[in-house]
């Protein structure tokens, strides 16, 4: 018996055991994700009007062509990029900054940990509703009240196109910065203390210590948290839906919301499917890129 045959024979029971354990999971995933995705692709090539069931027509790449010329789609695409880019950058800067600060006050850490958990466990839809009602409503929301008191006047935080965009980004950032904060805090706390001692003995300033020692060491953690946050930002839905519904008009639509509205409000399911496919491809590309960086 060759060495290869020998190894295969000995390993057979283990391999069979492993497959048995994994089979149910893979089956469920195949049924609930792969099969529907194939279906989605198929749907994107059709014209489906939910108001007229039974009248589906195969139209090939028509939906995609239409999307290519659709200004509303491109606006959603652009806003998706802006939304994700801005919120993740803010989350990273604020979260990391806070972690660095709080690291120096070990006694207060428990309070921050508790406060950080609250936004994270909140349902995004509730976060959106809270901000919409309690914070941003003109005349009685607290943000509006604060801005009036500071002499900045009352504004239509969710009704003005620019402000609505800002608000939506602010809400997402508010909810998920604590995640980055906790993540970075753990990463920073795991760094070996003696590195800093050595640097201090070598009389490096705090900034240099940060740039040359801390940053390179936590780079892997930063990349991971960015991957996690970007994928969530790309598929954000409930908070925006609750806060603005995609409005005013369509200015706060990200592709996600755009696809939803097209499918379930305008009842054009095939077209919505095409938008969803685009989002899927975008997400895969971004994730793939980030994973490549991770290596």
């Amino acid at each position, binding site marked *: 018996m060759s060495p290869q045959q020998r190894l295969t024979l000995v390993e057979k*029971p*283990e*391999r069979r*055991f492993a497959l048995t*354990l*994994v089979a*149910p*999971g*893979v089956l*469920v*995933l195949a049924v*609930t*994700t792969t099969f*529907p*995705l194939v*279906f*989605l692709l198929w749907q994107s090539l059709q014209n489906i009007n939910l108001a007229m069931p039974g009248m589906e027509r195969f139209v090939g790449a028509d939906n995609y062509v239409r999307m290519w010329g659709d200004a509303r789609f491109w606006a959603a695409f652009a806003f998706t990029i802006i939304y994700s880019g801005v919120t993740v950058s803010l989350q990273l800067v604020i979260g990391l900054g*806070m972690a660095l*600060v*709080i690291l120096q*006050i070990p006694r207060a850490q428990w309070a*921050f*940990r508790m*406060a*950080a*958990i*609250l*936004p*994270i*466990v*909140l349902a995004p*839809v*509730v*976060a959106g*509703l809270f901000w919409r*009602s309690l*914070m941003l409503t003109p*005349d*009685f929301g*607290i943000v509006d*009240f604060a801005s009036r008191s500071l002499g900045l006047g009352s504004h239509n935080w969710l009704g003005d196109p620019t402000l609505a965009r800002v608000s939506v980004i602010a809400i997402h950032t*508010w909810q998920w910065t604590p995640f980055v904060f906790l*993540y970075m805090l753990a*990463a920073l706390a*795991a*760094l070996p203390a003696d590195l800093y001692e050595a640097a201090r003995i070598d009389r490096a300033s705090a900034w240099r210590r940060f740039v040359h020692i801390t940053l390179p*060491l936590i780079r892997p*953690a930063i990349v991971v948290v960015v991957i996690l946050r970007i*994928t969530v930002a790309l598929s954000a*839905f*409930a908070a925006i839906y609750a806060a603005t519904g995609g409005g005013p008009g369509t200015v706060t639509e990200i592709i*996600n919301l755009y*696809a939803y509205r097209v499918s379930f409000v305008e009842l054009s399911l095939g077209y*919505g*499917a095409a938008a*969803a496919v685009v*989002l*899927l491809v975008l*997400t895969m590309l971004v*994730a793939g890129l980030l994973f490549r960086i991770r290596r």
Partner: protein
Amino acid sequence: MTSRRLRTLALMAVGACLLAIWTVPILLAVITSLKDEKEVLAYPPTLWFTPTLKAFDAVLFGPTNILGDLATSLIVAIATTVLTIVIAVPAAYAFARLKLPGRKPLGFYVLATQLVPPIGLIIPYFLILNRIGWMDSYRGLVLIYMTFSLPFAIWLLVSYFEDIPREMEEAALIDRASRWQALWHVVLPQARGAIAVTVIFVFLNAWNEFLFAVVLGGANVRPVTVSMYNYINTEQTQWAQLAAAALMAMLPVIVLGLAAQKHIVNGLTAGAVKGVGRR
């Protein structure tokens, strides 16, 4: 004051601000829910008032109460969690520890399923569930919820399983345990913490889910994340009731979050500590 003291004070001030920003919305919700509806609309917003439980009463016992929806959320979340754990734990063990044929591609596949945006699944689900009559049903919803909970649970558990020392399983095998016995008697008890963390996260995500619930649920199966919309009317939104409903809806997860914060932080940061310091 020494510059060090000054610096600490400044840091604490900044910290306190951020603390406030994070907790204010929830505190506001609590305050608002205890106000009378007219009081809510008063301007400037009042901090001193006589608290009343009218809003909670309406939300929990009134004609459009959310009690039934709370139960629905509970059933869906528990069912999702149980199913997910039962399937994910053995799968994660196989990935982490065993010579699984096709391990790399399978692992990649599981990872990739996590990247699928929910809207990409909702659209086909809508048509499929309608066709097979599983729309607005518990089994339909729970099965769909597995799409996001299963890959996440597997991913989380694999990193924990990899931390369990191999030698323990080897010792069990030498001591004549079968692979099933080794898994059950030796490995799983070690993974109790990991499973607890996973349960918490899966439950949390299932409870908070909105998009799937709103599109694929309906009159029969309406988790509490959807019921809040009842309190938003075009003419006159009942702010206090909205706040009360939202708070009631979020009460279980807030309590869970605060009670299990160590576990949550642990689970969130499971990757952070490992990723650090690789020079």
